[in-house]
């Protein structure tokens, strides 16, 4: 009996030992180590995680080489430091991510963490980041709750939150004075879908107070089969069908909906629909209104302006590397890395050129503004921790000559037109009819 217990005890201490030994050394002072967390498996891998990191890898290589990009991004790495990366799969839920975050910070001793597509992870990580005083950038996730319910010292989100997407859709309808007697929704049955629908409803009730709200469908995430939902939508004949679906769920819905002529009966508006264009190509029907959660993908390509050189450099590099054009995800990864570069170099300028601490990074990052292919990013909300950025909505049109999908009738929205002002929750902002919005 005794031996049995000591056997277990031995096993335990052995485990403890392996655990304590397996701690690699911290990054050198001439390299800057980032932990990148994004989806490498599961549904979000093909639509967000993998393209985002494809773009990220590309940019990190270009930066480490140096001189590949127009000023101010023509310097090597981050302030001369080479960029080193550890990638972790975001699949597996918030519990796993909190553990992985601790491992990255405490075991891998990364200098900064850049990651998180899932809103659940974005809510779970910040408290831990502050507890560990670890500089962290949320690069993709949409939920406004992150900074509206709490405030964090070491956590920043370099992309605008999801309210922008649906406000822009409503504004687009208005500015094209599209008649909306009634509208319905089909969104994935989890927070992203539920919140998007709520935001869209909120925006519509301001801009189209008389529009009748019809059925709001919430098929299970990853359902694949939308036959029943489509029947419901066909029966109700809403003038407009809103969907924030993404990835396989959006592709499946579009394939099945177009086969049954839903797009002929109702105008489809997609909050984040651009990223399925490369896969669907001409199977994506013409005349769909869609956004890209920012001036990303085709909208950025079509924009021109003073950011044209930067955008085209990244665009062509990406197309050359992966022979498909970059959709929204890489753009958000890029704006995160450009932001981090700007922050690091600002901090080094202040501290005399040494590798910045997490505190110095946080100080440099808050309230920062920088240029990215997706436009000017401003950390304008939540005390300089939450970015706002311009947005664009367009209409799909297949170009038979070039055999490419184009975005026509694109409308660009000033960041302050589609994002709530500092100190106001997006829900209130919608309810009060966008006070302080600057559109022109």
């Amino acid at each position, binding site marked *: 009996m005794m031996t049995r217990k000591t056997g277990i005890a031995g096993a335990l201490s052995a485990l403890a030992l392996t655990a304590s030994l397996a701690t690699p050394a911290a990054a050198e002072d001439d390299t800057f180590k980032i932990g990148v967390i994004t989806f490498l498996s599961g549904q979000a891998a093909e639509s967000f995680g993998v393209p985002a990191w494809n773009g990220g890898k590309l940019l990190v290589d270009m930066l480490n080489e140096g001189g590949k990009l127009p000023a101010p991004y023509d310097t090597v790495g981050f302030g001369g430091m080479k960029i080193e990366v550890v990638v972790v799969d975001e699949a597996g839920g918030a519990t796993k991510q909190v553990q992985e975050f601790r491992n990255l910070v405490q075991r891998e001793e990364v200098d900064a963490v850049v990651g998180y597509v899932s809103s659940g992870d974005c809510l779970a990580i910040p408290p831990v980041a502050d507890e560990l005083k670890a500089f962290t950038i949320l690069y993709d996730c949409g939920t406004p709750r992150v900074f509206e319910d709490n405030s964090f010292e070491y956590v920043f989100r370099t992309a605008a939150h999801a309210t922008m997407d649906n406000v822009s859709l409503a504004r687009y309808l208005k500015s094209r004075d599209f008649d909306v007697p009634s509208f319905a929704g089909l969104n994935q049955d989890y927070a992203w879908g539920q919140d998007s629908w709520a935001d869209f409803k909120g925006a519509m009730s301001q801009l189209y107070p008389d529009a009748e709200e019809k059925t709001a*469908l919430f098929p*299970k995430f*990853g359902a694949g*089969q939308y*036959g029943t939902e489509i*029947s419901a939508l066909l029966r109700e004949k809403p003038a407009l069908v809103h969907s924030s679906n993404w*990835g*396989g769920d959006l*592709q499946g819905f579009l394939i099945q909906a177009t*086969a049954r002529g839903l797009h002929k009966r109702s105008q489809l508006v997609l909050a984040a629909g651009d990223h399925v264009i490369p896969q669907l190509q001409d199977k994506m029907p013409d005349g769909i209104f869609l956004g890209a959660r920012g001036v990303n993908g085709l909208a950025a390509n079509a924009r021109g302006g003073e950011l044209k050189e930067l955008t085209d450099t990244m665009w062509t590099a990406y197309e050359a590397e992966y022979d498909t054009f970059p959709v929204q995800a890489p753009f958000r990864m890029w704006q995160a890395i450009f932001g981090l570069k700007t922050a690091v170099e600002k901090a080094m300028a202040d501290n005399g050129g040494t590798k910045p601490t997490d505190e110095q990074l946080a100080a440099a990052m808050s309230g920062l503004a920088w240029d990215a292919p997706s436009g000017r990013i401003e950390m304008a909300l939540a005390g300089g921790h939450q970015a706002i950025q311009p947005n664009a909505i367009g209409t799909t049109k297949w170009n038979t000559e070039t055999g490419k999908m184009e975005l026509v009738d694109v409308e660009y929205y000033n960041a302050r037109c589609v994002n709530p002002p500092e100190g106001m929750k997006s829900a209130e902002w919608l309810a009060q009819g966008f006070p302080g919005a600057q559109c022109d």
Partner: protein
Amino acid sequence: MDLVATILVDGLIYAGWLFIVSVGLTLVFGVLNILNIAHGSLYAIGAYASASLVGAYFAAGGDAFPYGSYIAMILAAVLVAVVLGPLLERGLLRYFYGRNEVLNVLVTYAVFLILEDVMKLIWGVNPYFVYEPYTLLGTVEMGSLFYVGYDFAVIAAAIIVGLAVWLTLNRTQIGKVVLAVIHDAEISQTMGVNVKRIYLGAFMAGAFLAALGGALTAPMISVTPGLGVNVIIVAFAVVIIGGLGSVPGAAIGALMVGISRAASVHLLPEAELFIIYFVMAIVLVFRPEGLFAKTQARKI
């Protein structure tokens, strides 16, 4: 088209799909007494295989005879069954016969995890599309609604599959042998039945049906990673409701789930997410072994 009719048609279409993906599961459990979580992976692999094969078919100028793509789809399912069936059954599962059935659930869960990544290694993360078979049969107008002809083809396929399985089991020699094995493998063994071959055959049939489900679904979706996980629990619910190992049970279970889901989408969209588990829980409370389960008294 009035609501009830719509609900019935939608429910029927979904039930047809459900039946195809779950009948294989119930068959495998009936014979091997293994509740196969990897069924979901086989479904996903079937979808990938059919997407690739149909893609290749059209690339090879199949437009001349597009209906050939249906043959390609079935071929894909056969391929999956022939390759993976023996590999999994002979290579792994046979070592767990007679072991605790919950342990076996874990074994297949491990297989599921492995196959998830294997699929990624083979097909990558980018989606595969093959719409041609989906749009090939045109649309059917019912009242104010349009349905895709393909949806009804799936119902037909489900009926054919159901009849085929039921007839094979109840009207053929091999079927009688299988039923004997289901009833008592040991006795059948002593009576000279090659139980090994029956097990292999049953598992391959199950794998084929799972893959067929995927193959038939592929044209209406984009085939992406994580496809399998969503199917498993639904299929589980169906076979548990119908009674493990019962083919008619799977049919009834599929109909119950299909129609209650359709009803909830049309009448109470909020409930859709867990209507399936709700039905399952209710059924189990009143029929602990499922609707069509055979309970055998114990000799003392």
